[in-house]
């Protein structure tokens, strides 16, 4: 497996800061905006954004985690059932502006399921999408992100992995390429 670092920890930090400022540009003081991270990997992006936004704005940002397992469109099309993670949205989304957050936007199917799952918590006034990595030209569905950390051109055989210090030991984004003889 070949590795290519797309963003190292310094650049990842810069990207997160930039995304935080972009969010503030369109959401002002976040008085009616909430961040919702998609399980399992989007929640780490949310906690990073929350940290930066709270430093800049000096107030608490409302955040939640959303699990989309039961809303996926590939149930029974996989070998094994997917085991759900925890959903933690203890506020109503009625008339809120929601920013859905995930680490990598690839086929768009996860986001499709996320939009469905989101509606079970009320009717948001607006939903936007933030992703750290947009694997462009790889979409199965007509879904685009409003805020993008970095665009990446990649092959289907490649894998993009956003890694965090608390889990993998280092903040970085890596592109893995399968060796041709593998």
């Amino acid at each position, binding site marked *: 497996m070949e590795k290519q670092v797309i963003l190292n920890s310094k650049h990842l930090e810069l990207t997160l800061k930039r995304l935080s400022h972009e969010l503030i540009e369109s959401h002002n003081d976040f008085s009616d905006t909430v961040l919702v991270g998609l399980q399992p990997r989007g929640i780490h992006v949310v906690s990073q954004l929350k940290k930066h936004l709270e430093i800049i704005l000096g107030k608490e940002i409302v955040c939640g985690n959303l*699990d989309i*397992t*039961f*809303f*996926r469109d590939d*149930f*029974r*099309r*996989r070998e*094994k*059932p*997917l*085991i*759900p*993670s*925890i*959903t933690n949205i203890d506020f*109503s989304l009625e008339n809120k502006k929601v920013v859905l957050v995930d680490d990598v936007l690839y086929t768009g199917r996860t986001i499709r399921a996320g939009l*469905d*799952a989101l*509606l*079970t*918590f*009320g009717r948001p006034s607006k939903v936007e999408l933030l992703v750290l990595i947009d694997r462009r030209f790889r979409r199965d569905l007509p879904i685009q992100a409003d805020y993008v950390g970095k665009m990446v051109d990649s092959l289907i055989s490649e894998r993009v992995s956003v890694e965090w210090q608390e889990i993998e030991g280092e903040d970085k984004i890596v592109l893995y390429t399968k060796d041709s003889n593998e």
Partner: protein
Amino acid sequence: MNNLSVDHLTGIKDLSKEDIDLIFKTADSFKEVINRPIKKVPSLRDITIANIFFENSTRTKLSFELAEKRLSADILNFSASGSSVKKGETLIDTVNNILSMKVDMVVMRHPNPGAALFLSKKVNAKIINAGDGTHEHPTQALLDAYSIREKLGAIHGKKVVIVGDILHSRVALSNIFCLQKLGAEVMVCGPTTLIPKDMNLLNVKISHNLREALEWCDVANMLRIQSERQEISYFPSLREYSMQFGLNKEILNSLSKEIVVMHPGPINRGVEITSDVADSKQSIILNQVENGVAIRMAVIYLLAAKIDR
């Protein structure tokens, strides 16, 4: 491990500890789902489930039906009264006729022990046993254990006594299997006539004294006297049974520690349990009912994942 080791749920006996843990973990998520403003997920929208009940049921039938609807499955309800079973149709014929209408899963309650297992070998659908005579009632045992885990934090090392009509109870047998697999100690308590003579083979303690049993346990699961299955008299009168084995506030308050009280329903108030105990803080009877929906959603979801496309 994220797949059940079985293709049908005919009894707890066939499940591994890992299976039960997986069902509990999945049920945790479904419990969160059924407490949302919109209590429904679309996972099973392409699945049809038939609920076939050859015996009366309120809770189990409603609970399964609700679980199926919350998962967006299409459902067919069938009860033996008013059906062609009365005209002499066999079980396999009845079920195969239902299955030829393209049904993927069957939830069945039947008065004969082993009916669910029999069916699972003969027909091409996933079978969930919703009670087969005096044999097993697996989803009830799962929800009982799940409720204990929720209330006490764990099951391993806990002491559970099952009180009452052990002889005719499918709940008792499934509970014994389930609790033992999860590492609990189990005791059965009741009049000698209502405890099967080979009970000791199941590695459970046996008591004929309610007070002694309650002093020993952390959880008491009170069972109903199943008069409908009793062809002879097993005790002199209900009043006498109630005096010896009925749980009342007096005996509960006189214990040295606070125990958890459970009942699988339907309750015969004043027989195996008095109203003030059934409605007390120590009773988790209504939590059991709520957890029943989440547990059944988990079982259906995990078995549905095994249906071939």
